[in-house]
């Protein structure tokens, strides 16, 4: 099992760059420059960095929604060219289908995906499992606009999980929530991810955030990015014991790690707030 980790990464980013051409002015802008990163099976990786450093672009490229201008993105050794059900995404604004109920949103993937669709009975079992898992029982027949922010987030999470992807990509999923809900959902995310499971049975998670505390609390490793263009500054190992609980935040190890990351991005985060470009 452990050998599998060493042998081949689950996701490999190899020297990727992304260049934009601003449509109206024709300016070329380099959003990401020469990013290389290996993510192993069962790993929980957080990417933190100031706004506009290209975190989301990296995630979109792994999802297959965007292509790098240079370099390759590969999963299990095969280059990624298009979105696929083996990589699930939880979007920042949730992107729930307004015309589908909670239940219909969650069964959307298994029901409509191109390959390996499930029959009604199987779907029913699957959906019920995930509705219970994210504690949405009782809200199955509500429409997204009838849900609170936290419940929408749970629904989006369950929709991604119900498609049973190997890799879960999360793009600032808790950014739109209030602080208390965020703390609760962080712990629940770890529970659902399966902190107690052996690594080979966990899902690989790539989690974008600008919350340093959030990254340290959740991740096995934190990739710290810098701005203009986006590069990976450092990848830090977070050797805090699992399962992690709320009390961990008060420990000095946690504080030290968080502070270390903050010092790395502080200057650029400040610059981003007064950016005049």
């Amino acid at each position, binding site marked *: 099992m452990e050998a599998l980790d060493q042998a081949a990464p689950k996701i490999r980013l190899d020297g990727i760059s992304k260049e934009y051409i601003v449509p109206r002015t024709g300016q070329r*802008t380099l959003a990401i420059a020469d990013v290389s990163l290996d993510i192993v099976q069962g790993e929980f990786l957080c990417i933190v960095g100031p706004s506009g450093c290209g975190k989301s672009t990296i995630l979109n490229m792994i999802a297959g929604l965007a292509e790098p201008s240079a370099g390759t993105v590969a999963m299990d050794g095969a280059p990624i060219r298009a979105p696929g059900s083996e990589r699930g995404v939880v979007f920042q604004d949730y992107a729930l289908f307004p015309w589908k109920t909670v239940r219909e949103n969650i069964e959307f993937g298994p029901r409509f995906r191109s390959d390996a669709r499930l029959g009604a009975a199987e779907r029913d079992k699957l959906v019920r499992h995930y509705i219970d898992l994210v504690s949405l029982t009782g809200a199955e027949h509500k429409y997204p606009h009838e849900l609170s922010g936290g419940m929408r987030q749970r629904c989006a999470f369950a929709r991604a999980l119900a498609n049973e992807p190997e890799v879960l990509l999360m793009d600032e999923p808790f950014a739109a929530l209030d602080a208390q809900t965020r703390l609760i959902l962080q712990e629940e995310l770890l529970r659902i991810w399966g902190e107690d499971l052996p690594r080979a049975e966990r899902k690989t998670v790539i989690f974008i955030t600008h919350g340093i505390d959030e990254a340290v609390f959740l991740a096995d490793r934190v990739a710290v990015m810098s701005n203009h263009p986006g590069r990976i500054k450092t990848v830090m190992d977070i050797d805090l014991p699992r399962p992690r609980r709320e009390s961990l935040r008060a420990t000095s190890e946690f504080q030290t790690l968080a502070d270390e990351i903050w010092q790395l991005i502080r200057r650029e985060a400040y610059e981003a707030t007064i950016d005049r470009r």
Partner: protein
Amino acid sequence: MTARDENGAAVAPGGATPYWPTPLAARIYASIGGLFVYVRAMAVFLVIWHLVSLWIGNPILLPSPIAAAEALVDLTRQGEVFSNVVASLTRLGTSFALAILLGVPLGFAMGLSRNVFAMVDPLIELLRPISGIAWIPLGMFILGVGEALPTAIMFYGAFFPIVINTVVGVRSVNPGLVQAARVLGVGRAHIVRHVIWPAALPNILVGARLGAGAGWMAMVAAELIGAPSGLGFAVEWYRELLMTPSVLAFVFLIGLLGYLFDRLLRWLQRVLTPWAQTQGGAL
């Protein structure tokens, strides 16, 4: 350090070669491109029309675009285009001005006063479903065949969208703005003039565009059925003479005038309400 261009944006290590020379040039290219696409699309359409007309080979059923263009030129030379356009435009102007002059104040009264609304709204809702065109036979009885009928029918068609959109505009004024003006000690007349009027204007202009569209359509029908002059009359006149190229020439003019009038109103929207979110682009 990363290379930066004069705007401070990061530039690819390879060197700073912007895609377009300048933003202005980009915009000019874009509008030339748009014109080119338009001309190309219409050219393809005209060629197909021409080929179909050759294939049908019956100039009464479908004359070629060249014949239609010749008819338009001839009719213009003889002044017939001019007299009919003037007749239709006079009616358009008269009835549209009347609809605005009566519709906007009524809409304001209905939007500002619950009493007025409660009294007038039922009558409007009773009459509105009966389209202007359905009034044509009765109108011919009352007004006779002549100038008054198409003017009245167009007025009727334009009136309701103008009133209804004015009411909506007045009512949807953000109450916070009115309160803000009141706590500044501004009186009611000034609030109507400087807060409600500008806030309602975008909706009023959308209503004007809707009204103009509906009214124009009703007026062409009225001219076609019961008027001695005008574009609608000319279309029908030349059909009876089986002079299809002239029919097409007048159909073209009906489209052109409708289009130009809408452009005029759009221009007014841009000039009078540059802040508006809804210009009613997809009317």
